[in-house]
């Protein structure tokens, strides 16, 4: 079992790599759609800005690759920007995104006396016992850094909620895709457990 880490120059992949190495997973990092197509599971990480990231994805044919990989049914884990960019669009410079899941990424309101980015540890309330939260106590804290939040159209896709001025979907899942707004690779033992759940999941998704 080999995990592909999709590299599209969106921030630092080092922490995802070291977390997977720590968990003993076999992984490789690539920005080549043909190489990535050989992986059994895919991690789509990223910190950065939606529009410039979409440009890079398109230039390398990675947007098409993602849609095909998703259809094929192999498990995908989107993290942070990788969680937002799988939706149809983002309010961040009105960007059209990859569109695996109907929905939009929205900006936190600047009128609520909130500091933006939403940065630090916040509680994640799992709403329907999704496998990705297996053996993680509910309402555990995870590390967040973001100014936009994912808002999938189908509320049944939402698997976890977090409060920051509003209650937003901090994780959602459709078919073989799981997307988390927080950074499991920076969220201590609970974050490692979440990654381990993704790595270890064998049948179905």
């Amino acid at each position, binding site marked *: 079992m080999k995990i592909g880490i999709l590299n599209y120059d969106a921030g630092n992949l080092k*922490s995802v790599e070291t977390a997977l190495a720590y968990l003993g997973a076999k992984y490789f990092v690539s920005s080549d759609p043909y190489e990535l197509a050989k992986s059994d599971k895919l991690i789509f990480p990223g*910190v950065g800005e939606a529009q410039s990231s979409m440009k890079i994805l398109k230039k390398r044919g990675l947007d098409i690759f993602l849609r095909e990989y998703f259809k094929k049914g192999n498990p995908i884990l989107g993290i942070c920007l990788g969680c937002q960019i799988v939706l149809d669009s983002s309010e961040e410079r009105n960007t059209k995104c990859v569109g695996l899941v109907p929905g939009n990424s929205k900006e936190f309101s600047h009128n609520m006396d909130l500091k933006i980015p939403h940065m630090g540890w916040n509680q994640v309330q799992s709403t329907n016992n999704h496998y990705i939260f297996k053996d993680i106590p509910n309402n555990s804290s995870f590390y967040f850094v973001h100014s936009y939040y994912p808002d999938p159209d189908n509320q049944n896709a939402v698997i976890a909620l977090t*409060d920051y001025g509003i209650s937003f979907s901090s994780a959602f899942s459709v078919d073989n895709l799981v997307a988390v707004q927080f950074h499991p690779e920076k969220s201590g033992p609970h974050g490692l457990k979440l990654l381990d759940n993704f790595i270890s999941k064998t049948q179905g998704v």
Partner: protein
Amino acid sequence: MLQKRIIVCLDVRDGKTTKGVKFKGNVDIGDPVLMAEEYYKQGVDELVFYDITASSEKRGIMIDIVKKVAEKIFIPFSVGGGIRTLSDMKQVILAGAEKVSVNSSAVKNPSIISEGAKHFGKQCIVVGMDVEMDFSKPSGYGIVINGGRTKVDLDALEWAKKIEKLGAGEIVLNSIDADGTKNGYEIKLTRMISESVGIPVVASGGAGTSMHLADVFNEGKADAALIASMVHIDGYTVGGIKEFLNKENIPVRI
């Protein structure tokens, strides 16, 4: 609800953690990698490593430490001290640090903040401010650089706003007056800065008891609090401090 962060600061010189008072006289207190692992186990939310190595030829030691830390602890940590260029930033980020911290170099060359934010994202760029009471300044506080040794003609409040405008993701606000006293954080200063900017403010300098952290969160409106000697020397644990804060109804990650 977003929780208040406790950040442990490790000053590193020639590969060893040291602790000094008012930037004078440092004593080695341990191995930074082992100490980082211990605080990670205790539930610290974040770590900061300041490289206070004097000679440039020994700076490679710090990069090795950053790499080792990144392999063992899975929480955000930042690295500061001697970061002057984009290439300095890139080196520590590639070694596995989540954030880089600039201080004197940003006062001398403010564009390092905007350049860093453009290249690595604003969440990566932390600006440290060393602040001293100075009644000749409009806010009553001025900026000092070079580890507190050199006064510059800069108002602290004005500088904080400029830091935000230039694109920094966070401010570490260190009171030179409170640093090393163990009498508590500079509440008035922290509150003034925190309420004037829209980015998180980390209070630093003066922590001696758990109550001091409660005060800087409640009264000082800090988003995070930096501690050092409380846990390095005085026998406090991160877990113990968090338990206390939890009882004081301050949201912390337990």
